[in-house]
């Protein structure tokens, strides 16, 4: 789960990573009150789950509370790369001397934690890494031991930060790493990490991605999602325990197992069609799961036909077929459904499907045949 900047900063503050003082606001009036409370010049920042806010005009300075009211009015409701701004974060403006970059993530190749730091922060760090790889210092950390003091120190000195930033940067890195591990993060990133004119080192931004598998240790983390803007169809799928991602085609896809569903998208594309979504019902799906999944796809007007692709392992073909049968009885399905069943209890499943008295149910023997039929039914040309 990707957190909004202010949510990430709240976690930073909780564990002791220094951040500028600030508060969130959802209306210009609130923004004015917050600016008055903070005093002095403030920064008004759009809270959206997408990068490039600054360039889009989503970050603005305000010298006094009335200006904060005006700036918040401009930013709230703004569209940034398809994300509408519903909330701004207002913080005391920092007097910046230098901007750095720092992050911790998992290096899947090395199977160790990876710490990165650069004296060239505040800009596109990927561009810096591409053009001056030596400007980004990378350090592998043994997850069993954690980040020892000497290694944090080495990161800071190798990156050649300003000498007066060294102490503060080492302290910040150690806290940032602690947040990365204790909060079960996939990523913690600070760009920019700043040195202020009065010698403090702080996180001026936050990018935090939480590992939802770790939520059993953090009972309050699911609350963060309440502030996230999730399309209704995705929210509905999530509430029903289905793994759903909206795509831009017209063939609705339902399958079991992420690999098989991805593969189904590929085969649909291979025969000349485009999938409307990714929907994985997971292992052990029963009849209800299938009707649930079909109900979710009924909310999406771009779907013209549906392809159900099941390979039974733990999932039983007869239960899937039962779900399809029940859906034809209880739902007013607006489109034809192509079904391909194989694996555990597929024979029994096909017998159940034979009972469905509807022209809208089209059985298919193979994945490719199923994809071809679905693409044709969606009105596409099979290539």
């Amino acid at each position: 789960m990707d957190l909004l900047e202010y949510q990430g900063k709240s976690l930073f503050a909780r564990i002791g990573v220094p951040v500028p003082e600030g508060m969130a606001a959802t209306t210009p009036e609130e923004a004015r009150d917050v600016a008055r409370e903070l005093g002095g010049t403030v920064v008004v920042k759009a809270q959206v789950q997408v990068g490039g806010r600054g360039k889009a005009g989503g970050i603005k300075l305000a010298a006094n509370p009335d200006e904060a009211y005006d700036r918040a009015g401009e930013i709230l409701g703004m569209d940034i790369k398809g994300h509408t701004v519903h909330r701004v974060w207002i913080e005391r403006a920092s007097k910046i001397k230098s901007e750095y970059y720092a992050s911790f993530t998992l290096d899947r190749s090395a199977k160790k934690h990876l710490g990165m730091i650069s004296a060239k922060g505040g800009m596109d760090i990927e561009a810096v890494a591409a053009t001056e790889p030596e400007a980004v210092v990378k350090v592998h950390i043994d997850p069993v031991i954690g980040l020892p003091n000497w290694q944090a120190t080495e990161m800071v000195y190798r990156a050649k930060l300003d000498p007066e930033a060294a102490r503060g940067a080492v302290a910040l890195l150690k806290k940032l790493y602690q947040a990365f591990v204790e909060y079960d993060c996939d990523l913690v990133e600070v760009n920019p990490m700043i040195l202020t004119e009065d010698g403090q080192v702080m996180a001026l931004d936050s990018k935090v991605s939480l590992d939802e598998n770790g939520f059993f240790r953090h009972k309050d983390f699911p609350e963060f999602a309440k502030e996230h803007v999730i399309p209704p169809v995705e929210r509905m799928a999530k509430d029903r325990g289905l793994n759903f991602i909206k795509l831009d085609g017209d063939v609705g896809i339902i399958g079991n197992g992420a690999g098989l569903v991805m593969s189904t998208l590929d085969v649909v594309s291979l025969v000349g069609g485009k999938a409307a979504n990714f929907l994985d019902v997971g292992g052990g799906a029963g009849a209800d799961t299938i009707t649930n999944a079909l109900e979710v796809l009924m909310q999406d007007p771009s779907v013209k036909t549906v392809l159900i692709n099941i390979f039974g392992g733990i999932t039983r073909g007869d239960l899937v077929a039962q779900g399809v049968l029940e859906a034809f009885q209880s739902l007013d399905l607006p489109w034809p459904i192509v079904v391909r069943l194989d694996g555990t209890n597929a024979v029994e499943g096909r017998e159940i499907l034979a009972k469905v008295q509807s022209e809208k149910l089209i059985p298919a023997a193979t994945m490719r045949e199923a994809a071809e039929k679905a693409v044709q039914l969606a009105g596409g040309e099979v290539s």
Partner: protein
Amino acid sequence: MAILIDENTKVVVQGLTGKEGQFHALRNRAYGTKVVAGTRPGKGGEEVEGIPIFDTVAQAVEATGANTSLIFVPPPFAADAVMESAAAGVDVIVCITEGIPAQDEAKVYNYLKETAPDTVLIGPNCPGLISPGKSNVGIMPDSITTPGPVGVVSRSGTLTYQAVHELTTHGLGQTTCIGIGGDPVPGTTFIDVLKRFQADPETKGIVMIGEIGGDAEERAAEFIQEHVTKPVVSYIAGVTAPPGKKMGHAGAIISGSKGTAAAKMEALAAAGVTVLDDPTSIGEAMKGLLEG
């Protein structure tokens, strides 16, 4: 021969008293797997369908000679269960549990490398493995498998079943089929398994199924180029997956152009692997390579 598990495999099941653990352990036993023990602290001395329960894995190993552990315990306790098995000295640990935090997986992986480097961990978040006709350790449906000359290794559960089914329907049996799981820190990589298939005289051909994200397939391609002389057929899922989105497997995250299906397919093809764009053609392709 088979790799990692065979007729001499003796399994201790961690989480045997749970519903899923019991269902699959009994299914494995019915297939012929020697399921010799289960563990559950506080239930030592009891039995589940004739399988003795011990309080700890160490006790189970000592009393029964178990050399393989099969883990079904819930995510909060699974990393601990892996370390317990490693400390008890089993050779192979198969962790089925899905939903283990990545931080736990990273710790366990490195802990095993440092304290028990010879122990093999399969998974987590995997279907396990089967050596047809000999032993089934995990949740793979055995009815689609049959003994024969092909080794199968995959990151995806259902695609493993699909591949095995295609092989079997084309008259090609399997030495061993392994699902290594799609999590960010798998205990066993493609290369670990390829090494074993290459060394196994009965394995004549290898099927490798990958997916987008990470660079495990690219590394496997380098290894195949240098060390694998047997024919390899490969399929990579996720050609059309949108960039930057998670698709169920935490592993399936694209970063830049690295880790894309196209990059993986290119690397494998350059290493002499037969790369397919449709998983249902795996059987036919392997048949052509072995008989051609």
